[in-house]
């Protein structure tokens, strides 16, 4: 997929995220908009997994540790055909499988997450199984920066480098915000790179909304043979809608009718800009 096609998808994904959150009247708006470009590149360019290969033991795995940003994951999985688009309308409804955190009842989802600090251990175990069985699949996990205060992450980080899991890719959605405010005010994470380096990771920084840069960074895996990979993705919480960007209270704020119209109008504008450059395409 070309970069401009990926860029078009990112606009549409943002529209969908806002639409399903608005409809469900619940969701994690800021975090989903923060990680959607990463998920776009992973599912449309990087991961060796499709709806038909989802049961293949050799598929690449994606485990979303920051489970609350599930609206981004559902949006991308539906677009990739893991389940029908119309299922998105059921988000948060009574007896729907599409609940507010990832669950394996939704096809395409590897692990039930939502409690923070769990994804990395799960990913380490899955990557270790690949090493034990001499399989070539890779395991990707997306961590929020807020959840890095959970000690279990550092237990898992230790194990990742002890077992030389260069088939493990840890992506940190470093938007510097968590529900209460700046991560550095809540509990200092910096120097974050030094911490992961000390735990034995090979590290690359990337702009988390720069699609070509994201593509390029994943092409370089393994960054260093024998070391687990850390992609420190510098992102903006709420990215793509000006008044949502970089605001802690948008963590799980649902747009009002007015905010919703304004947000979609901004995305209309982004789409027109894209079309002026690349021409009209069929809607996704």
């Amino acid at each position, binding site marked *: 997929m070309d970069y401009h096609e990926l860029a078009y998808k990112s606009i549409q994904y943002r529209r969908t995220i806002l639409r399903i959150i608005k409809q469900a009247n619940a969701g994690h708006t800021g975090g989903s908009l923060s990680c959607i470009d990463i998920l776009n590149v992973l599912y449309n360019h990087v991961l060796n997994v499709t709806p038909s290969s989802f049961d293949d033991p050799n598929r690449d795995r994606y485990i979303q540790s920051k489970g609350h940003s599930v609206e981004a994951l559902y949006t991308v999985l539906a677009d990739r055909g893991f389940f029908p688009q119309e299922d998105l309308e059921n988000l948060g409804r009574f007896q729907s499988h599409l609940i507010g955190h990832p669950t394996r009842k939704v096809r395409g989802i590897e692990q039930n*997450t939502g409690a923070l600090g769990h994804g990395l251990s799960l990913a*380490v*175990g899955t990557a270790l*199984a690949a090493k034990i069985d001499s399989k070539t699949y890779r395991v990707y996990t997306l961590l929020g920066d807020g959840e890095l205060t959970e000690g279990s992450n550092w237990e898992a980080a230790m*194990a990742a480098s002890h077992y030389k899991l260069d088939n493990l890719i840890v992506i940190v959605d470093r938007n510097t915000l968590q529900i209460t405010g700046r991560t550095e005010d809540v509990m200092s994470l910096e120097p974050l790179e030094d911490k992961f380096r000390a735990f034995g990771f090979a590290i690359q920084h990337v702009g988390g909304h720069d699609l070509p840069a994201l593509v390029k960074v994943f092409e370089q895996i393994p960054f260093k043979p024998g070391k687990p990979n850390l992609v420190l993705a510098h992102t903006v919480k709420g990215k793509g809608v000006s008044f949502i960007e970089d605001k802690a209270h948008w963590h799980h704020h649902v747009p009002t009718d007015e905010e919703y119209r304004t947000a979609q109008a901004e995305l209309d504008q982004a789409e027109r800009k894209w079309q002026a450059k690349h021409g009209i395409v069929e809607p996704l």
Partner: protein
Amino acid sequence: MESLSLCKPNLEEFAQTLLALASQNKDILVVTGDSRGSGKLVPFGKTLPAQIVEIGIAEQNLVGISAGLASAGKKVFTVAPACFLTSRSLEQIKNDVAYSDNPVKLIGISAGVSYGALGSTHHSIHDYAVLRAIHNIDIVSPADNFETRKVIEAAVDHPRPIYIRMGKKPMYDLHTPDTRFEVGKAIVLSEGSDVTFLATGEPLSRAVMAAHLLEQEGLSVGVISMHSLCPFDEAAILRAAQHTKVMVSVEEHSVHGGLGSLIASLLMQNGFCPRLKIIGIPDEYTVTGSQKEIFCHYGIIPEGLAETARQTLNAKEN
């Protein structure tokens, strides 16, 4: 009744059984948190070094990694002291194992008050209660080497998560080799019209000996091994309730939320109101001492159990 013969600790039986199984199945993995020594797994590690994964003292990570390994098709036996495994990593058990349905086999070693005078930090008398309240994890406490061997064999291809807990001390042989064992099915050792002991795990041998004492006094006494607290063999208990005057439950666990609570709840909801005594560790700072001394203090010994049964039986008749 002939006297019981003393055998290995269940932990040793577990380790030997697992080594034999793993030698034939390279997907079997032991995952351990610096507990291969106390888990009697040093021979396993020496014989099958590629099938043991060391995580270090990090129970949350131990269980999370185990869930990841199991999701990729490995047959994972996760071994750690029961006290830490079922409390420090409870959220990982709840979410990564049970809720995500990764069929890890959690082996709680040195369970109950096995650690004796090491104190409450090292006791696990809460594990049945917390795990019973979590959906999609089976719970088995083998009473002797036979039940241990059988549950470990069954665990390899068990389709659901399972928690198996064991103590450290040598156990008496309580079953004949042709006994039928199935996870979730009680084993009726004997039936009695006066008293029925229902025991789970290693205290079962004390119940068997207590029954022997009471039989010598002319009472009719039954003993049932409730090795599985989940699935729970309700039918076996309801059957026993129909023909026995007194029921005594015995467990190496808090009297709250374990075997006794399950039995009481089941009986009441099915219209039975028998004389029931729940014997376990009471809700207090557990008395200090060796496992044997703790058992003695709380009456989890043959003489104590027999006396409880006698008093309960007589109380109604007066």
